[in-house]
Each structure stands twice: as structure tokens, then as C-alpha cells.
């Protein structure tokens, strides 16, 4: 008797698993049949800040409802997002490192390059401000003070937009922090890096949106802000469908158009106001980069 019941159990489990598998398959079926050109799916490679701040959770459902496309947002650092664009592994990119974006536009890999929004980078650090950064006149001054005192500085170290910005600031300050004991690279997203800076009582450069969204968990405060060269500018762009056979051109175009439409720009402007009392991102569609921050 016992033997039979064991067999029955095995049968039940195998059946359940197979059933689960079938369900998974039927769900995928329409996706697989809808191949390249008329695909209703778009892969969006973007930065972690748009996900960690919660902006994507608001923008994508609207877009999907409006257009019928299904968006697959892959939140990675700007560096990786652009790399995926270069290989044609994504249809549309939303990133924030103009110096790294420019080559893609020049090479024709990215087309339909549009300014979407901006906010700013801020330098945050422990409340007691061991390096006396608050007295610094500018963000570059601030970095110099941190280096002088050898205060812990936590860097993204992941070639993200924020990381690119930070590296260029060190360059301006004529300091090479790489390998210094007080300079620590996390290699992870902004949220994670803020948590680490918080635990290590270190300074870090962050975009304002992620910082505000996470402030409830952090003891860090803003120690330097408001510099003109601390602007954090987001662009959206299509990966050129003429260069890669499998890139969804129509879908990418629809997403770019959606991001710069007045309706979406309004959503971006209102995003976070209820929770943080201020906008996390400022909509900029149609403006020129030079006009920002004035």
C-alpha cells in the first residue's frame, strides 16, 4: 500500500510541476510568435536611479496602457545600458551621461536623441561632516577637502552616469583617488551605494531623486549642492533599427515620443511632490541643454 502512495505522490508532484510549466509556456506563446518587426515588446535599458526612485513604476504602466506595447525595463548603470544599446540588445535607452552618450549618437547607433528631464547631483555625507565640506565654496573644493582629510568617500565605481560624473569631478579637482585607502568603490547601484556610505559614515555623490527616495533610511545629509556643473541630465534615445535587425524601431520610437509628450512631462514634474514636497525630476522636453539650470 505504502509503495503505491509514494508513486501517487510522485505523480502528483510531477504533474503539478508540468502544469506549472505549461502555464508558463502559454503565457510566453504570444510573445514568441510576435517576432521582430511587429513585436509589441520593447527592451528599455536605463539607469538605476529611474527605478530606485520609483519613476519607472509610474511612467511605464501609462505607456503600456496608451500604446499596447509591453516594456521590459532593465535597470542597470548608464555604462551598461549604453553598452547594451551598442550591441543592439535594447530598443530604447534612458540614461544620464552626456559624455558617454555622445559617441553613440555620432556613430549612428543611437537616433532620435531627446532631452527628457534633469535634476542635480548632490554631495552627501555624515551629519558631523568630518572633512568640513559644508564650508567649501564649491563641489570641487569639497572633494579637495575630503581628499585632504582622507575622509571616507564611497564611489559607485560602476561606470554609471553618476560614476562618470564623479570621475570627471575628481579630474577637475586634479586628484586621483583611485587606490587611496579612503576611496572605496562599491560597484553597485545608487541605492546600495547610499546604504553603504550610510553604514561607513562616508561621503558620496548621488542624484537627488534617489537620495530623497531613500532619505528615510539614511543618516546622511546634503553637504554640497547647487553648483552649475552638478546638473544631472537625462536623455532618451532609440537604438538605430537600421543597424540591428532585431531592434524594435516602431516601439522605440513610440517610447521616445511618449517620454517627451506634454502629458508625460507633466507626470514627471508631479512625481514625488506629494511624498517629498518637491519634484524629483524637472521636465525639459524641447529645451536645449545650455538653457538648463538658469
Amino acid at each position, binding site marked *: 500500500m505504502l*509503495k503505491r502512495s509514494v508513486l501517487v505522490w510522485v505523480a502528483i*508532484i510531477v504533474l503539478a510541476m508540468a502544469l*506549472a510549466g505549461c502555464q*508558463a509556456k502559454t503565457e*510566453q506563446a504570444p*510573445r514568441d510568435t510576435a517576432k521582430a518587426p511587429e513585436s509589441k515588446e520593447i527592451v528599455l535599458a536605463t539607469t538605476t536611479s529611474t527605478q530606485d526612485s520609483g519613476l519607472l513604476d509610474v511612467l511605464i504602466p501609462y505607456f503600456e496602457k496608451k500604446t499596447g506595447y509591453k516594456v521590459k*525595463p532593465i535597470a542597470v548603470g548608464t555604462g551598461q545600458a549604453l553598452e547594451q544599446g551598442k550591441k543592439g540588445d535594447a530598443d530604447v535607452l534612458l540614461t544620464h551621461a552626456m559624455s558617454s552618450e555622445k559617441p553613440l549618437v555620432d556613430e549612428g547607433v543611437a537616433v532620435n536623441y531627446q532631452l527628457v528631464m534633469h535634476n542635480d547631483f548632490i554631495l552627501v555625507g555624515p551629519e558631523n561632516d568630518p572633512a568640513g565640506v559644508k564650508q567649501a565654496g564649491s563641489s570641487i573644493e569639497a572633494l579637495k577637502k575630503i581628499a585632504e582629510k582622507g575622509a571616507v568617500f564611497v564611489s559607485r565605481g560602476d561606470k554609471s552616469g553618476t560614476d562618470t560624473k564623479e570621475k570627471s569631478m575628481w579630474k577637475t579637482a586634479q586628484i586621483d583617488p583611485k587606490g587611496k585607502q579612503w576611496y572605496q568603490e562599491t560597484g*553597485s547601484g545608487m541605492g546600495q551605494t547610499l546604504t553603504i556610505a550610510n553604514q561607513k559614515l562616508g561621503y558620496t555623490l548621488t542624484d537627488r531623486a534617489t537620495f530623497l527616495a531613500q532619505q*528615510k533610511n539614511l543618516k546622511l545629509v546634503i553637504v554640497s549642492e547647487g553648483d552649475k556643473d552638478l546638473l544631472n541630465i537625462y536623455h532618451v534615445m532609440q537604438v538605430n533599427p537600421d543597424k540591428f535587425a*532585431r531592434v524594435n524601431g516602431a516601439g522605440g520610437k513610440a517610447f521616445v515620443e511618449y517620454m517627451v509628450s506634454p502629458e508625460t512631462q507633466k507626470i514627471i514634474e508631479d512625481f514625488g511632490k506629494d511624498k517629498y514636497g518637491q519634484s524629483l525630476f524637472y521636465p525639459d522636453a524641447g529645451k536645449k541643454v545650455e538653457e538648463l539650470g538658469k
Partner: protein
Amino acid sequence: MEQIWQGLIKALEMLVQGDREVLGITLLTLKVSGMGTLISVLIGIPLGVFLALAVFPGRNAVVSLVNFGMGLPPVVVGLWVAIFLWRSGPLGFLNMIYTPAAIVVAQAIIAAPIVTGFTIAAIGQLNPKIRLQIIALGASRVQLLWLLVREARMGLLAAVIAGFGGVISEVGASMMVGGNIYGSTRVLTTATAMEVSKGNFDIAIALSVILMVLAYIVTFSLTMLQQRGRGL
């Protein structure tokens, strides 16, 4: 400490209210990891039985490869599967990257060596005389294999449990080949990692509790099945 309580309370809330988002993620996790385990069992048990019984030159080398594979880091498997499945990769035409099927493939690759390794051990442990006795009783080849598998069922179920444990707990591969897409490839482990980076520690703790409960329920069922055989 307070954070932990908040997380536990949140977990209870989510479970009691039957939070649809969490329910969806949990079901998907079960489906994907169940399917991944099933495939690894379908590959691993026959392969393990074969490797345990067969005699051929280089067998030890193959077995050592299997044993090595038992410790394959999920993130490495994820990277390699991703390289193949990206649109620019050799299997890009399948359009499989960032789908649940991609996670199933990666998880099956992670679990297959585990199941195979345990199977080799389970069959190898059987008293060799059993084999001779079964053959002496006039069993056919298929009957022989079936009886051996039955005889080793405790070890084989341990193989299934270990395989399932390997895939339900991994995050690196799921993140890389699945992309943590809500409603499609967001499973409990990737959702937990994401909530941590969002700073929503209460939700992250809640998800981790749910993951552990789920893993325990499945493991418990398999253990019941395994230990039932003891009476025989």
C-alpha cells in the same frame, strides 16, 4: 531591531491580505524554480544513474566534472546564458532573453549537476549484490534500472531537494537573464534585492520571509515523500 519587527509585520500583512503583487511574484517563483528543477531532474537522474553504473574510460573525469558543476556560481551561469541569449548572441534569434523561460534554462543548468551528483552518490551507495540479485531473478534491463532507482529513492529525493534548494535561492542568474521585470521575470530573490536597493527594507524583509516559507513548504512536502519510503 525595530526594522526587523516592521518587516515581519509587513510580511504578515502581505500574506493575510493576499497582496496580489506578492502573490504573483510568489507563484512565478514557484513556477520557474519548479520547472527548472523538473528539467534538471529529467536530465540529472538518468545521467546520474548512467554514470553510477557505466564503466568506460574517462568516467572519473566526467564524474569529477559533475562534482565541480555542483558548485557552479549562479552568477557565472547567468552571465554565460545571457551571452548566448542576448539579441547579439548566437541564440539571440530565439527572443528568449528577459523571459521566464530564460530563467528556467539558467536554473536547470545550475541544478542539473547537483541532481546528477547526488544521483551518482545515491546509486553508487547501493549494495552491489542487489544488482546481481535482481539480474539473477531474471529482470530485464528496464526492470533492473527501475528497481535500482526505487531502491535508491531516498537519495534521489535528496537530489531533488538539493536541486530545488539550489535554484529557489539563487539571485544572480535570475537577475541577469530575467532582468527583474515586473509581472514577467520578477521572482522573490530579485524582488528582494531590488527592494533593498530601493531602501524599502520592510518589504525586502517581508519578501525574504515569504521566500523562506515557500522554500520550506516545498522542501517539507518532498521530505514527507522521502521519509514515507522509510517504512518499506
